[in-house]
């Protein structure tokens, strides 16, 4: 900033407009206003409103009635809420498998043979396809009468299993469908990360006799840290946002066994259970609080990095 002030004082006309004098401090706000406006109205404000609505009994149209914490008390006795919460945890844990899976596919594809670029894009393919289509594709894949899964396990004499109709398997079946695009996403992150791995370090480690797993764990993985961080962030966010697949594949069933919080909230607030906005908002608040732990960690990591710059 010193240069700017020095120059300004050199050939500064005596009278400049107020805007000209304060240009550098005003301009960023002019540029920020539209984004802040949109973001506040549609994101920040609704988060606060969700907290407010969660203490109301309200059908979305009629009178709002203040009911204090009774929505939350009801949650504590609601078995559907616990099922959803449990499924959310299963999603969170199993979804993280996308990270190692993506890393291994990336390692497998990180070669320079003819046509490898096409292979890389085709492996990435599932991520580009809408979750709705992924859901449909996997519903048919699991179908007990004609699905490919049962056709395959039928060959070895197993099955048929109705994955999506069985309360024990249903959540795992949906997560497997979700892992497909998510693994592709992590793969592309790692492929880019692997490009930037320092070849000299790898060579040096090789001279020291490191290879295979040791090389991967002590030399490569530490250098992939930025890619791993992003993969972790997008996977956690993806797991907590899971909705499309559940809605398409099972609509929460059988017997509500595949619900997660986001889906249950939708059901309570906007579907056949009647329009219970307050109860839905209370579920949303719980989901938000779970996410808040992760957001705090993400922001803390980013803050550390910003300070380091």
């Amino acid at each position, binding site marked *: 900033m010193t240069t700017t002030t020095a*120059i300004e004082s050199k050939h500064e006309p005596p009278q400049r407009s107020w805007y000209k004098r304060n240009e550098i401090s005003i*301009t960023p706000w002019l540029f920020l206003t539209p984004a802040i406006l949109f973001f506040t109205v549609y994101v920040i404000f609704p988060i606060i409103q969700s907290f407010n609505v969660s203490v109301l009994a309200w059908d979305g149209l009629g009178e709002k009635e203040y009911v204090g914490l009774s929505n939350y008390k009801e949650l504590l006795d609601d078995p559907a809420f616990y099922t959803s919460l449990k499924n959310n945890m299963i999603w969170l844990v199993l979804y993280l498998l996308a990270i190692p899976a993506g890393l291994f596919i990336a390692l497998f594809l990180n070669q320079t043979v003819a046509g490898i670029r096409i292979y890389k*894009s085709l492996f990435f393919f599932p991520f*580009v396809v809408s979750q709705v289509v992924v859901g449909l594709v996997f519903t048919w894949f699991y179908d007990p009468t004609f699905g490919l899964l049962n056709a395959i396990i039928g060959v070895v004499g197993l099955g048929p299993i109705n994955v999506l109709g069985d309360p024990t398997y249903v959540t795992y079946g949906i997560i497997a469908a979700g892992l497909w695009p998510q693994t592709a996403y992590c793969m592309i992150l790692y492929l880019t990360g692997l490009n930037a791995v320092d070849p000299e370090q790898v060579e040096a480690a090789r001279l020291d006799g490191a290879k295979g797993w040791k090389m991967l764990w002590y030399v490569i993985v530490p250098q992939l840290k930025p890619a791993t961080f992003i993969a972790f962030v997008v996977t956690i966010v993806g797991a907590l*946002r899971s909705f499309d697949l559940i809605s398409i594949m099972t609509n929460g069933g059988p017997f509500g066994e595949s619900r997660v919080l986001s889906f249950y909230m*939708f059901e309570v607030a906007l579907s056949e259970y009647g329009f219970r906005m307050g109860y839905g908002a209370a579920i949303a608040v719980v989901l*938000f609080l779970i*996410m808040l732990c992760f957001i705090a960690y993400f922001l803390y990591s*980013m803050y550390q990095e910003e300070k380091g710059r």
Partner: protein
Amino acid sequence: MFPKPIEKSSRSVQIGYQSLLPVALIFWLLPLIAVALFSVKPAADFTSGDYWNLPSTFGGVENYSKVFFESDMPRYLMNSILITVPTAIGAVALSCMAGFALGIYRFKSNLWLFFMFVAGNFVPFQILMVPVRDLTLDLGLYNTKTGLVLFHIAFQTGFCTLFMRNFIKGLPFALIEAARVEGVAEWKIFVYVVLPLMKPAIAALSVLIFTFIWNDYFWAVVLTQGVESQPVTAGITSFNAQYRAAYHLMSAGAIVAALPPVAMFFLMQKHFIAGLTLGAVK
């Protein structure tokens, strides 16, 4: 380079690897290949219970023309375009400006504002559902494309601003200083100095946002209903309800719905991947 370059291995390992690649790929894409196969099978195959053999006759033309000429699919596709394109333009425009402000200027609340955008972007968006639906109803925009576009622009601005700000931070600051020395007005620095350098970031974000919004399902269900404003992701469920058990048509419909982002990806691959992996390397 890790793992060890395959060309340094023996001939047999190389051949093994080369032949493993297509096998692995087919295995990986099996569910999609199955749907593609379904979509070109004639209806007769399904009624006779033949699901997994090759099509007895090529039914692709008939199936796809049914999707295009005898269903609401073209309208859903059109809605998707009318939602996706304005959103991409709006979100990119807003975030170029916000990213410029946060990337170039130093002021007290800079980092806080930046973190606000980042945090908002991580929020599981379902928690916005009740208030945003209510707001959209109040504005009279429920079941309109505009209502959907406005929300999408606002929500995507979080991610886009994160992206743009980091990109602009990476530009050489000397350029801006030089322009200031010349006495160029700040807004002109944005238009003539920074914006031209942001072209790759703009391209990357546009394709990303196009794909994200095209594939959105949740907000389409929450904020719209019916053929006049629903995008294709939501439309396909009513399409499927209409053609229940007509797997050849549902498959063709699914392929049609999935195709535009796929085409976008293959055409703009470099930008797409650059956008997704920004930050994956330090």
